[in-house]
Each structure stands twice: as C-alpha cells, then as structure tokens.
C-alpha cells in the first residue's frame, strides 16, 4: 500500500527548473488534468507503540474496513516502535515483530523517533532496508547512507491527482543535540534543530495540495511548529505520549497525537477542494475492548508473543543463585560493570524471585527484574550515600539496598534507630569522604526514595534488566554468588539473614 514517490524536495526543485526551461506549448503537453472538485482523504496514525503489539489486529481491521469502503486511505507512524516490551526488545533480531507487523499493516510512512535507535544504527539500517515504506525526517542527515530508506520528505499520490507532501522531524536534546538515546547508537548521523529545519520545509507547500509534518518532537513543540508554520495543514506527532482527542486546531493547523502503547488509533479526515484542504478533523479510536480483528495479524501477534528467545540460556552458574543478598549483588554488579559505575544499589522490592536456576534463561531474568526500570547515574558524596542507605533502612527497619562497589554496615541502638552507617571500599577500608562517586540506582529508587543528592542525576537510557543481560553475556564468574553478603546490620535485624 506504499504510494510514496520517493520524491524529495531536491528532486521537486529540479523538476520545477526543468519545467521552467520548456516552451509554453510543451508546458501544456505535460500539464495534467486538474483534479476533480473534491477528494476525501483518511489518514490513520499511531505513535509511541513501544513494542505493545497486541492491538495491531484491531487497528488493521479498522484500516482495512476503511480501505474497502473506497476511501483514499493512508497509514502513518510517528515513531518509537521499540523499547518497552521485552517480547519485542529481546527478539532475534531485536524488533523483528514490529517490522513484520508494520509491513503487513501497509504503513505508508514512518518518522523515526529517538527509540528507533535503541537497538543500534546497524539494526535500524537493516530494518529500514526491509521496510516497504520510506522513513521521513528532515533534520537527520545521513551522509554515509546508513538508513537506506531515509528521506527528508516524501510526496504521496492520493486519488484524483491530489498530492500529499510530508516531511518528518525528530526531537533532539538541548544538551548534546542528539535524540534521547545513547550517543553511540546514532554515530554517523547528523541532527539539526527541528523547528529551524521545518522553516526550510515550507517550500514543500508547492509540491502538493496537502502539507503534513509527521513529527516525533512532543506535543509542546508541535504547538510551536503550528504557530510558526501556518502553511501546514496537519501535524501528526509523537514522543510526549499525549492523547489529543479530538485533534486541536492551532493557528489553522490541525495538531494530532494518538497517546501511546497502541491504546488508540488516530484517524484524520481531510477534504480537498479546488487544490486546497477545506475541511479537516481528527479523532482517536479507542482500541480497548472487543473489536473486530484481522485473523492473520492476530496469528502473527500470538506467534511473536511466544518469543523463542525467552528460552535462550544466557549463562550457566555452578549452582542456583539463591537469596536476595546474592541476587542483589549480581544485579548491582551488572549495573556497575555495564555502565562503568563505581557503586550501584538495588532495592529489595525490585528483586522479584528468590532463586535463579543453574541455567539462567532470558525468561528467568525478566521474572527476576520485570519492571523496566532505567539505570540512573547520580554523582554522590559519602554523606549523600549514607542518606540514601538511611532512608532505605527506615522503610522497614531492615537492610533494603543491595550493593556493589562497597560494603556497608548500619549500626542501630537495637531498637531500629540508626547510630552509624559505615561504608567500606572494596579493599575493606573506610570509603574516602573527600570526593564524589558515580553511583547507579534504578529509576524507581531515584524517584521514590527520599535522600540528599545535589546532582539530580541522569537516566543512562537502558534498563536494569538489560544491564543484567549484558553482564551475563560477558560470562562473569558466577561462583562468587554463593553466600555472598555486602550489606550488614549491627546488631542483626529480623533474623532471616544472620
């Protein structure tokens, strides 16, 4: 269902020059018949699915019913298909189900979001090469051709000779000028400021009767774009997970976004008359509850959800790793090792099982750590580390945080009141108090625990479970985790540990 002409702005300008150089009579010979008075166009859209594939069979039924009704139907994706569902993220190759599904669904265009890069540029390049539709993003330059189907803009052919010009935009961070993913994953691509680039794209107005920005810059930025570029007919956005229902009219531009996680399918209807859009509206279709489903798409979803990669053995330990101390030490060692941290903490509530078997599978890991918490790095001094440990201890008058990089002892008065928290380095001596340390915690701990830290910290863009997978794939010595303990209470607490 891909009707993109691969028609970039450059090729359009070339065509204009070519036509300008011809005589009037030859001009007349290439001129096409004017489009009929009225053309009705329906554009379906989704964004920020993040691997939540289950509702695609319902969306497919809605889109196919519209196509069969004779309407002129297009289907756009405003980015962030990956990251957020281990079934998709851990597929071999990663994200493969999304590729097969969007190809089957007949998606016409995709604007890459920051999470499209999460599996690495090489993987996205393969995805792009096998996609049956172009990627559009005007503020990504790809001098090495790493994403074979990336275009700044595309002109789509609708019925009755109506042309729809679409350009894409991706968000970049104010700090490093890159999309919100690990910088290594976008090496080789060049990014420019999206709204500035959008101003250059207004030339596309001449390329079609309809001009659309397909963006992944967030709703606030979409509103700014609408204010600055009234030449646009529609902005279809993503990134901020905003549920805009109905689509908003801002400065004469229809601004749409379909929430997140495949909960909604966006539907935009345009009426083109005498070469311009005269009516436009957008609504969201709620995909919750019983709706018609396309059988073969449903079968694909069922198959993908039985991801065989989950049975893959990641590592073999000489014994089952048992107990919260041992499992917490393993998890924090993983965080520290994968992210180059000096100290890492893991809260006990985030350790969801008490035993990992000798043959550790991917499924075991996601049972151990199912929450999808990000690793957050915070620069902390010794007092701040003590403040974190103190808050964790007060939550249950017991040891809560497992640790890597140091050991610690919480000395109490025997009634649970903390007298002292003693931190020791790996060599057993007291931790020097004259510097800060690169400390890793889960996003849950960073946001839920009440502790002093002058540095607000930063997400490292991957989950604690992913750190564990990466660590086990490095084949560490797992024999150290028998009876291991790094966090102590003096005098001993409830008795289950000591």
């Amino acid at each position: 269902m891909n009707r993109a002409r691969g028609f970039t702005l450059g090729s359009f300008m070339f065509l204009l020059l070519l036509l300008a150089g011809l005589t009037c009579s030859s001009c007349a010979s290439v001129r096409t018949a004017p489009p009929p008075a009225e053309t009705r166009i329906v554009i379906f859209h989704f964004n920020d699915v993040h691997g939540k594939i289950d509702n695609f069979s319902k969306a497919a039924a809605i889109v196919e019913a519209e196509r069969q009704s004779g309407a002129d139907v297009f289907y756009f994706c405003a980015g962030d298909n990956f990251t957020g569902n281990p079934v998709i993220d851990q597929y071999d190759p990663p994200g493969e189900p999304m590729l097969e599904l969007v190809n089957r669904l007949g998606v016409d265009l995709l604007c890459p979001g920051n999470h499209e890069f999460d599996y690495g540029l090489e993987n996205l390049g393969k995805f792009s090469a096998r996609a049956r539709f172009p990627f559009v993003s005007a503020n990504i330059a790809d001098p090495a051709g790493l994403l074979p189907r990336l275009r700044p803009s595309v002109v789509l052919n609708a019925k009755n000779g109506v042309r729809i010009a679409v350009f894409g935009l991706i968000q970049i961070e104010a700090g490093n000028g890159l999309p919100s993913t690990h910088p290594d994953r976008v090496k080789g691509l060049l990014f420019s400021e999206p709204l500035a680039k959008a101003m250059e794209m207004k030339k596309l107005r001449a390329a079609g009767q309809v001009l659309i920005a397909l963006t992944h810059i967030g709703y606030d930025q979409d509103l700014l774009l609408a204010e600055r570029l009234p030449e646009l007919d529609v902005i279809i956005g993503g990134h901020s997970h905003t549920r805009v229902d109905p689509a908003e009219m801002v400065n004469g531009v229809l601004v749409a976004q379909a929430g997140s996680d495949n909960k909604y399918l966006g539907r935009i209807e345009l009426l083109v008359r005498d070469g311009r859009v005269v009516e436009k509206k957008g609504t969201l279709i709620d995909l919750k509850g019983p709706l018609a489903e396309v059988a073969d798409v449903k079968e694909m979803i069922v198959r993908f959800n039985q991801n065989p990669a989950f049975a893959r053995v990641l590592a073999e330990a000489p014994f089952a790793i048992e107990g919260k101390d041992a499992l917490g030490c393993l998890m924090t060692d993983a965080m520290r090792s994968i992210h180059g941290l000096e100290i890492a903490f893991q809260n006990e509530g985030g350790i969801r099982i008490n035993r990992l078997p000798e043959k550790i599978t991917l499924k075991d890991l996601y049972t151990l750590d199912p929450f999808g918490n990000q690793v957050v790095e915070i620069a902390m001094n010794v007092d701040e580390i003590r403040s974190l440990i103190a808050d964790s201890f007060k939550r249950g008058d017991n040891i809560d945080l497992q640790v890597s990089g140091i050991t610690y002892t919480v000395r109490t008065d025997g009634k649970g009141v903390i007298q002292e928290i003693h931190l020791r380095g790996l060599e057993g001596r007291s931790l020097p108090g004259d510097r800060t340390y690169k400390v890793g915690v889960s996003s849950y701990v960073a946001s839920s625990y009440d502790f002093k830290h002058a540095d607000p910290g930063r997400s490292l863009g991957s989950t604690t479970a992913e750190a564990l997978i990466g660590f086990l794939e490095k084949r560490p010595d797992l024999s150290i985790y028998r009876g291991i303990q790094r966090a102590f209470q003096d005098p001993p607490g409830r008795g289950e540990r000591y």
Partner: protein
Amino acid sequence: MQIKVNDKTIEIFSGACVRDVLRKYSKLTWTQVQKGSKMVCDGHGHQIGLDGELSDGVRLTVTRVRRTEPRS
C-alpha cells in the same frame, strides 16, 4: 531537570518519564493514578501516558477522572 506538578516544582533526573515524577511528587497521588481514580494531563489539558518522556520545564496536572454515572 525541573518539572512542575500541580504548581509544585519537582527536581528530577534527566530522562525521567511521567511515572518517575509522580512517584517523587506524592506517593498517594501515584497510587491514585495507578488505580485509575486520577489521571495526568499536560499543560494543555491533554492526558499523557505514564511512560511519556519529559523535558525540562514541562508542566503536569493531576486531576480526578470524571466517570459517567449510569442512569438508574
């Protein structure tokens, strides 16, 4: 980065998403949002997902979910 939730400024790590900020804002509010009695909207009144990525200066409001009462 700083996020405003119901006019209270929350300082949180960069890269935080909506759920992180809510946890830091109020345990009670976070529980209510999880249970579905409250929802999170952006500064324009549109509902946003809990995994929505935030940037510095964003404003959020937490409001009660209005339910349509069944007619007797």
